[in-house]
């Protein structure tokens, strides 16, 4: 070969040489104190702890803390920023004692006045999960360590205060005179948690990095992870290979097949568990062909629920009603089953079905979620058999949500598929958010406007604190009504399937905080 191409060959050789040496260098592993979390979605859409209501929960719960924390295993509320609390006056007055020696990341000490200011600001902003504080009439701070809540109606405030959303305690004076919301969204934080935000670059693979907060009240004795890195890795196979090769410490949901293949792999540990997260298809009761109840019921009867659960290969369990097992109000035997003959009859009455007028529905799912794509494929096939053509559109979450909330009903989808999980371990969140009427729509994406349902929802939370059995009866009756009207269709309850590096010690999955890993509680081993 000639001199020129010899030069080219040399160039390629250099590349390969670099490959070799890099691998050798990568070999030596000291105890890696960075916990890297590979997430399917982008991490942060909102930094303001009062408003945050999306995927950033997995980071926020390592930066901010609540008054209390719910332990899903023991089903009890544990102390966190509050060391003790008691309720009086029939559950309408709650007194919390704050932990001493706690400092915000801004340096200011945690006082009752600061906590009160945080909760009131969250309540006033009225977005995200702020509704959880609706029961609160007023908050008093007799001294720097004591918070006294007066409620409009009895409510389980200790449980509410443990919520994964809108219950963070933060320093409202963090931005001084500047606008706090804008200050937060410049990737700043004012929490009390074990980690501080150290860098954020949107759209990059290594999107968010947290680093240890030196004077965290829990202290840093023993071995802890000093850094937390959140990576956006959309492709499931890439995430699986990263966790297997030690490229990342932890990955969120993989496809059922990938998870099954990981179980036998010695390089990783796996953990499975039930969750409070279910996949629901909301049928548009306000506009479009599904406005007709018969058509909705036909759609609900046409779906092959058993087939969906089978195709997801053990990563999900069949749903029964809207409340997952493990929460009060769970009603066994309330699930749909495929009933083709009834579906055909109902469609015929509405003038659709095989041999009659074709029906076209559009169904939206979140892009990049393999399970939702699979469900859409099966639903589309099931309905195609009934001369119903389902147009599937996979969109970015915020776009899918904005489309559903658009002012012009014609723009809204017929079937909206999304996951739901409670803000705190209580069924109330499904009903107040998903089925209570609200204008303009927020999460009530069946656009249901049913007075009886609304009044029943309004009184059930208070009942939970006072007469629990009455609350359970209400939830039961509510679910029967919603299912018979085919307002929405619960498809399945997800099982959490965790895969993480063998070097992670002390991992406990807490379904009350979906996909959240409390990194401080873990012990890195070599």
């Amino acid at each position, binding site marked *: 070969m000639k001199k020129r191409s010899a030069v080219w060959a040399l160039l390629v050789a250099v590349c390969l040489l670099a490959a070799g040496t890099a691998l050798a260098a990568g070999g030596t592993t000291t105890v890696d104190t960075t916990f890297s979390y590979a997430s399917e979605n982008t991490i942060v859409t909102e930094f303001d702890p009062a408003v945050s209501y999306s995927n950033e929960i997995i980071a926020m719960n390592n930066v901010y803390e609540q008054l209390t924390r719910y332990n899903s295993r023991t089903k009890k509320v544990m102390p966190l920023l509050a060391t003790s609390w008691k309720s009086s006056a029939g559950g309408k007055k709650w007194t919390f004692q704050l932990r001493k020696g706690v400092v915000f990341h801004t340096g200011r000490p945690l006082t009752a006045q600061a906590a009160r200011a945080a909760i009131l600001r969250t309540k006033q902003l009225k977005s995200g999960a702020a509704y959880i504080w609706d029961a609160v009439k007023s908050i008093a701070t007799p001294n720097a360590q004591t918070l006294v809540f007066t409620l409009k109606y009895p409510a389980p405030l200790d449980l509410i205060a443990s919520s994964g959303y809108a219950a963070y305690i933060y320093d409202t004076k963090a931005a001084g005179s500047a606008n706090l919301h804008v200050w937060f969204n410049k990737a700043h934080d004012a929490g009390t948690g074990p980690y501080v935000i150290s860098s954020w670059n949107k759209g990059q693979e290594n999107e968010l990095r947290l680093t240890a907060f030196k004077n965290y009240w829990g202290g840093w004795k023993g071995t802890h992870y000093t850094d937390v890195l959140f990576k956006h890795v959309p492709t499931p196979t890439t995430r699986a290979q990263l966790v297997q090769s030690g490229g990342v410490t932890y990955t969120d949901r993989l*496809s059922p*097949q*990938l998870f099954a293949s990981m179980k036998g792999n010695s390089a990783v540990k796996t953990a499975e568990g039930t969750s409070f997260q279910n996949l629901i298809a909301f049928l548009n009761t306000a506009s479009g062909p599904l406005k007709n109840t018969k058509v909705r019921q036909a759609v609900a009867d046409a779906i*092959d629920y058993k087939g969906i659960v089978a195709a997801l290969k053990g990563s999900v369990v069949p749903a029964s009603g809207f409340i997952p097992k493990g929460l009060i109000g769970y009603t066994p035997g309330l699930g749909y089953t495929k009933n083709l003959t009834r579906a055909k009859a109902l469609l015929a009455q509405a003038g659709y079905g095989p041999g009659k007028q074709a029906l076209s529905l559009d169904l939206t799912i979140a892009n990049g979620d393999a399970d939702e794509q699979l469900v859409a*494929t099966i639903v589309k096939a099931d309905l*195609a058999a009934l001369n119903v053509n389902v147009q599937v559109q996979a969109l970015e979450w915020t776009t899918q949500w904005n489309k559903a909330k658009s002012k012009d009903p014609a723009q809204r989808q017929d079937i909206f598929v999304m996951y739901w999980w409670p803000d705190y371990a209580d069924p109330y969140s499904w009903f107040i958010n998903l089925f209570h009427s609200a204008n303009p729509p927020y999460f009530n994406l069946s656009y249901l406007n049913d007075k009886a349902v609304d009044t029943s929802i309004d009184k059930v939370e208070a009942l939970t604190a006072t007469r629990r059995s009455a609350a359970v009866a209400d939830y039961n009756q509510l679910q029967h009504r919603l299912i018979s009207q085919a307002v929405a269709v619960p498809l399945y309850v997800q099982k959490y399937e965790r895969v993480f590096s063998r070097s992670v010690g002390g991992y406990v999955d807490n379904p009350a905080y979906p996909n959240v890993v409390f990194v401080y509680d873990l012990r890195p081993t070599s």
Partner: protein
Amino acid sequence: MSDLAATPARPRAVALRLGHDPLALAGAIVVAAVMIVALLAPAIAPFPQDAGAAVHPLDALLPPSHAHLFGTDEVGRDIFSRVVYGARTSLRISLEVLAIAALVGIPLGAIAGYAGGLIDDAIMRITDVFLAFPALLLALALAFVLGPSVGNAAIAISITWWPWYTRLIRAQASTVASSGYVASARALGVSHARILLRHVLPNSVAPALVQLSLDFGGVILTAAALSYLGLGAQDPTPEWGLMVSQGQSLFTTNWWAVTFPGAAILLTAVGFNLLGDGLRTILDPRQALRDRGT
């Protein structure tokens, strides 16, 4: 400059000479096989309904077996049947795209080459503009406007494909236009249109025929790429690119969901490219000259 435009050789002679080049012969065989599979899809596919809307979730992801030659996909559909019907989708897209591209591109090229001057320049600049737009980005816009589908993907590809033919034909047409017999025809007062139709086009079309055969592979690859990105075929249409995209997350655990559709794309594209190369050496004497090295 002697007139190098090849008069299209008789088909029998072409087939004869194809036989001599082993690679071209292999290409012809593969292409014939793909066409037969596409034509006789209903007969060949064991589960024709799996190419449509049928799903069998209980049989999801079975490995290749006697019953399912290529195994089943994540909703239990027989992959072999879908790959067979996929041949139909791919050939249909290629025919659609190349027909549009040839019908628009060739006449424009002939006019540009024949007219020369300002018209030529204008047409060529427009061609350059369209060449600057990759098919993918136009498919993106179309997917917005009309929603992603096989048809819209075909339109997007043809919008960015016709310029190649304009460029190809223009070069050929300008040589034909400058040759003696065109000048004499014009001297006899023959109208521009007749000259274009009777003289310029027939003598410029040969390279386009060669390019058409080569482009079949190219269009199939581009269409598969668009479907892979979700801008082309939508479920349940059996399209190879879409099948690779759907099976992608299963690659490490269930290899067959991705391997067979991808192999089908590769095999078909190789077939058309080999056949195209073979045709080129026969229809384009200059290339033949090059190959013989005299």
